[in-house]
């Protein structure tokens, strides 16, 4: 009897311990009811503007709350990874926010689940949508339906460290690939305190590698997002050239994240970095003597990536709430708001009718605005996580770790085609 009890106890102790992992999954999936609101409209707004642009966003939202006595926006700013972890469970349980801001790369996976309202009719009636930057409009469209309204528009540029360039006796930033590669080699050295020509991040980052593929005529997927392009000769050659320079010439550290790349550039250990306008504030504060240049032209074309963040409305919102959120969208993309936002943060206005004189308080904005002319968003459709995070990123990581470029990309391409066929 005693032996049996002890054994049962032991078994249940082990079961309990093992259950913890399984329990987490089940617990988070359970639902909770949602409280209804009435009268004065209060909207909850979730986003991840934790960066230097956060204070400006807060100021603009509180200004909206002051000028619109019938609407109150309760904004929750959280780190993006927390945001993406919380959002879908919250929406599924009915306790999700009334509207959100998220990267348009992620938008299709959510829109396809039917969690957001179609904004087609809003785009027909809004006073702003006709003047919104075309790239900002196309990036917020999923299968022909408008699901988002742009919050910000951020073409990437090449940051270059003027001091390190001068030390290496290079007068100007590179204009094309041969110059870019030669400069990167010249700016790199090993030793006790190594320096890198470029900080090229491949994971948890604003996409940098896809630009290299595009400029060589390749890509990760084709323009209609129906087939992988990683095994094309152009993609393979782009990866071969740059990974060779990294492995053999040490022009960049291997397999770093976006945050690592930023800290390398900020610590003046890397001479170049491809990044968006949000980085200007941090680098200025760190007293990095940097310049901004367009991403050097590739053999096939000159193209950079534009990062678009957009706002979407919860499909469970009442018509009154939807209307209130749309009032906020009108305010956000109004000329006055966009000028304040652009000048204070360095982001390019989402509108095309803001003039250079209106933006002269922040000279960087004009540079990013010009870079936006040769910029496209990074779109992989509803299979974004599967293709980017789970296939493409590990492939490039393996290659930088010494795996064969051709066969690794071929395998990844096959995987991507499987994902695209399964949607």
């Amino acid at each position, binding site marked *: 009897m005693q032996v049996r009890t002890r054994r049962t106890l032991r078994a249940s102790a*082990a079961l309990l311990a093992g*259950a913890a*992992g399984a329990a987490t999954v*089940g617990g988070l999936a359970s639902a909770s009811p949602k409280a209804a609101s009435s009268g004065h409209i209060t909207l909850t707004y979730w986003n991840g503007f934790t960066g230097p642009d956060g204070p400006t966003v807060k100021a603009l939202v509180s200004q909206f709350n002051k000028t619109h006595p019938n609407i109150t926006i309760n904004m929750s700013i959280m780190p993006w990874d927390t945001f993406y972890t919380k959002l879908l*469970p919250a*929406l599924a349980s009915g306790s999700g926010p009334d509207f959100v801001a998220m990267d348009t790369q992620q938008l299709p996976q959510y829109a396809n689940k039917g*969690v957001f309202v179609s904004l087609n009719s809003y785009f027909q009636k809004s006073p702003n949508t006709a003047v919104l930057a075309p790239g900002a409009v196309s990036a917020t469209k999923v299968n022909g339906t408008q699901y988002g309204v742009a919050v910000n528009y951020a073409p990437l540029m090449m940051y270059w460290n003027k001091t390190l360039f001068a030390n290496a006796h290079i007068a100007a930033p590179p204009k094309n690939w041969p110059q870019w590669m030669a400069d990167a080699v010249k700016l790199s050295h090993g030793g006790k305190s190594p320096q890198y020509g470029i900080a090229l991040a491949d994971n948890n980052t604003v996409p940098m590698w896809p630009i290299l593929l595009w400029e060589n005529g390749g890509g990760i997927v084709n323009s209609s997002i129906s087939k992988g392009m990683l095994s094309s000769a152009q993609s393979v050659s782009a990866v071969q050239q740059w990974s060779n320079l990294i492995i053999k010439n040490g022009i960049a550290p291997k397999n770093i994240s976006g945050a690592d790349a930023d800290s390398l550039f900020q610590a003046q250990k890397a001479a170049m970095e491809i990044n968006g306008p949000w980085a200007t504030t941090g680098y200025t504060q760190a007293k990095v003597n940097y310049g901004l240049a367009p991403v050097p032209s590739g053999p096939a074309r000159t193209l950079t990536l534009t990062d678009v963040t957009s706002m979407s409305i919860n499909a469970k919102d009442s018509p009154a709430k939807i209307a209130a959120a749309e009032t906020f969208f009108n305010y956000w993309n109004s000329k006055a708001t966009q000028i304040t936002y652009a000048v204070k943060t360095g982001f390019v206005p989402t509108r095309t009718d803001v003039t250079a004189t209106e933006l002269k308080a922040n000279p960087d904005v004009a540079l990013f605005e010009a870079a936006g002319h040769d910029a496209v968003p990074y779109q992989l459709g509803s299979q974004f996580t599967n293709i980017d995070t*789970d296939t493409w990123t590990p492939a490039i*990581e393996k290659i930088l*770790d010494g795996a064969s470029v051709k066969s690794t990309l071929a395998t990844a391409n096959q995987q991507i085609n499987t994902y695209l066929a399964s949607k």
Partner: protein
Amino acid sequence: MARQKLRSRLWYPWSTRMRRRRTLTAYLFMLPSLAVLGVFMFYPLIRAGWLSLTNYSFFGGSRFIGLLNYRNLIHDPQFWRDLVNTLYYAGVVTPVSVILALALALLLNRKGLPGRGIFRAAIFLPAVVSFAVSAIAFRFMFTPSIGFITYWLAQIGINVPDWLDSVSFAMPAVILVGIWKNVGFYMVIFIAGLQTIPKELYEAASIDGATRWRRFVNVTIPLLSNTTMFVTVISLIASLQAFDQIYVMTQGGPAFSTETLVTLVYRQGFQNFQMGYASAIAYVLMALVLILSLFQLRFFSRRTVKY
């Protein structure tokens, strides 16, 4: 004989009633814990079990699909790769931290060792710090060229690879942090265990002419086996469920080289939104933990001795 009869007549009815009441009281005392366990452990556990039989993905309803998730698991190379990673992590972290903890406990259990308290506190300290916080600190220290570890090693001429960004070195780096974090806690448990061993046994062994090594093998190890069992079981369970420091340090990368089963559960459930599939993986992990724990308990309970 007569006395015994009398006793049973007097005691038996009373004892049944009392026993029932006492059982009830015991359950009442247990109720708060049972309620907490029920809500936060058993309900989610049962629900996860149900989810693993469906294709639930937050939206679009969920359909019962039987054992399809489990069948898909068998053919999923990600699952096997992460199972190998999990066993690699647990297979190194558990024995190394248990042996290291025992060695440190033996060393720091000696009376008269100068600075004993300080050393004990220093080694125990990592156990108090949140795993996520220490993982962030280690991430910084391992960062190439500006990290403290890589920098000082480079200063003395050792050019280590970028640990966390290398497919072959990321796992050893994560393992190192796992051991560093746990060893202090296990050491404290071992010290407590060592202090329960009666001194007389060592004295007797000494008089019998046993060397220090013999005393360790024949007195310390057998009398410590209950403690060793406890430490090994919790250490193995903890390392099979490793998640926080891996998530913070590498997020399972580069190229999935540090992705363990729990990281896979997280990725499938909360990044790819395949809740049903994630639950199935969690259940397989639970079975694995259960089997290994039972095996350990059997192994150690045969070796328990009392003098």
